[in-house]
């Protein structure tokens, strides 16, 4: 059996890739994908610990999280569409109206 540490390392790596994406990309679609990566890193953790403790609650939770992620993507795509309609672009740095 693979020890739980490997899973945690994998999850941390996926999370950091997502975080890196958010901090460096300007395209809103890439933003959305990066957020998905981070969310799935958390899912990996849930499943890994669920297997480690021999308890299926964590896996059930991860199913719910996936459904949640789908809904979140729907909202996110909606926001990106509005962004495109208003700024003719999906670059998040151009939409900087709400500032001081």
């Amino acid at each position, binding site marked *: 059996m693979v020890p739980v540490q490997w899973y945690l390392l994998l999850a941390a790596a996926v999370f950091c890739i997502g*975080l890196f994406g*958010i*901090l460096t990309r*300007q395209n809103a679609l890439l*933003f959305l994908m990066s957020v998905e990566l981070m969310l799935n890193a958390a899912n990996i953790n849930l499943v890994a610990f669920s297997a480690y403790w021999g308890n299926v609650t964590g896996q059930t939770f991860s199913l719910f999280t996936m459904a949640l992620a789908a809904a979140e993507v729907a909202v996110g795509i909606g926001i990106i569409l509005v962004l495109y309609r208003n700024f003719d672009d999906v670059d*998040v*740095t151009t*939409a*900087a*109206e*709400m*500032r*001081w």
Partner: protein
Amino acid sequence: MAGAFDYAPAIVLLPFLSFLVSLAGGKYLPKGGAFGGIAATAGSLVLSAWVFLTVSAGNVYNETLYTWVAGGEATTLAFGLLLDPLAAMMLLIVCLVSLLVHVFSLGYMNDEGETGLPRYYAGLGLFTASMLGFVVADNLLMAFMFFELVGLCSYLLIGFWFREEGPPSAAKKAFLVTRFGDYFFLVGVVAIFATFGTAQFAGEGSFPVLAEEALNAGTTYFGFAPQTWFTIVGLLILGGVIGKSAQFPLHTWLPDAMEGPTPVSALIHAATMVAAGVYLVARMYGFYALSPTALGIIALVGGFTALVAATMGVVKREIKQVLAYSTISQYGYMMLGLGAGGYVAATFHLLTHAFFKALLFLGAGAVIIAMHHDEDMWNMGGLKNKMPVTYYTFLSGSLALAGIVPFAGFWSKDEVLYEALVHGLGGSPLLLAGYAMGLVAVFFTGFYTFRMVFLTFHGEPRSDVARDPHGVRWNVKGPLVVLGVLAATVGFVNMVPVQELTGIHLEYLHDWLAHGEISALTSEHYGELLHDYAHYTSADVASYVAGAMSLALALAGAGAAHVLYNVSDPDEHTEKLGAVKTLWYNNYYQDEYQVWLAESVVLPISRVADKFDQGVVDGVVNGVSSVSLFAGSRIRRVQTGVVTNYAVLLTLGLTALLVVFGLVGGWFA
């Protein structure tokens, strides 16, 4: 069975009801709501008479009716009624005078075609109601509230003709000057509450009783000996009295208040506003009697005011001005009487003065109607034959004011002076000084009173209007006759000198005030207090000797006026006084002095205070806020609007939190 005391609240509520009716529906009622006011005050008068009879049967009513702040451990604030002989007597005076003033107003206001009558009668109703509420108040706070209401009503009524120039400013002056005194009164009320925890006038735990106990026990208050502290508190409350009763130096509002309608002047001077001050001292006399210093100051202020006001009355041209100064002077006598330990004497003078001064003002009102609202006495003359009813009633009032035997004012003024004399000779130079000033004022009173009578009614008419005066109707003559008879006879309730000479029992007012169910409110008890705490002792002087002395002076004054002014074409003899006349005519420059005080002393102080406020106080506040403003203007730049920056900040924050938790939690140890 329901007795008089169960209906007693209606005495106050009836005029208040008339106020509401006149205010809401006066313009739909005949005579602008006058009949409602007459009915209400007549009802109050009947109820007051009933209360008077019940009180004379030996009953006293002292109940709390409505508690509006239930204090628990702390102070309880409530409305209540205190109906003892003093209050019952005052109720009768106020109701009667108010009723007659309402009737007289039919002639003075309605018949003269004044507009705004609903406002006028509403004002009269509220004025009467507030004074009655003040009279029956069973605690000092309630008394203070109605005291203020009285002040408000005087403002509304003095400024009744608000479209002219004079009345509004006179109204403002009356309000502000009395408010200045009331400020001290308010502080005094708070001091009473802080000292005793109650402001009840009568009963077991009332503040005069507590004060007496504290004196016996030697309790100290706020680091003061009890008597010193009571003097301070008493003098604070006296501030309100001096303002309302127009005593020196706060008397300046009263002559200006003549700008109001004459019936209102009658009401203010005889029964309501001005009487409130003296009544307050009488009401809490059990407290004042404990402090000889406060009493001495009351007597001195009273005597001084009596003399100063009388001298100013000598030179005035307008009939109402003379009466105004006579009012100030007469209330000075009452204060002198109270300060001199003459509780009954002062109350007696309050009673007689209410009738003869109401009479004189209403008589002056009749003259003013006749003269088509010309008040200058030098344009009058010879009205005696044209308006005999007014003349003879006015004469009755004048004889009472001057203190000529056997009219009402003689008996009461004489008793006031007698009390001041005997207690002064008993070892109080302060009272003796007050007596001396009061005695000199008697001469001036006689002089100005008869100068007024002779100039108005005797001699040849000095103007066309005086040759053909406007007639007056029953609604003017009726009140004059009632008051004229009273002014002549009411003094008979208390003829101490006659009693001493003949041995017939004639001091009914002494009996009336000496006994009662609540022994702490009787004049007997006050006498004991004066003797035990104020150390008043009486010298043995026969009252008829003192009486003869003041009578001689009054006759001398009246005689002087007769010689100088009872001729067909009198000269302005007061001109011969030269600089003194100018000084008196300008009221000792009191108004100018007070304006100077305001402009040259108070205004610079206010300016400095304003500078301090704007510079230092506001400066500190503005400084603090400018720091926030500056910091905000810098820190707000964090909000760039770029989503990525927010994400960076979030990440950095999370990292920082993790590092802190790690350090604190010991992960790196």
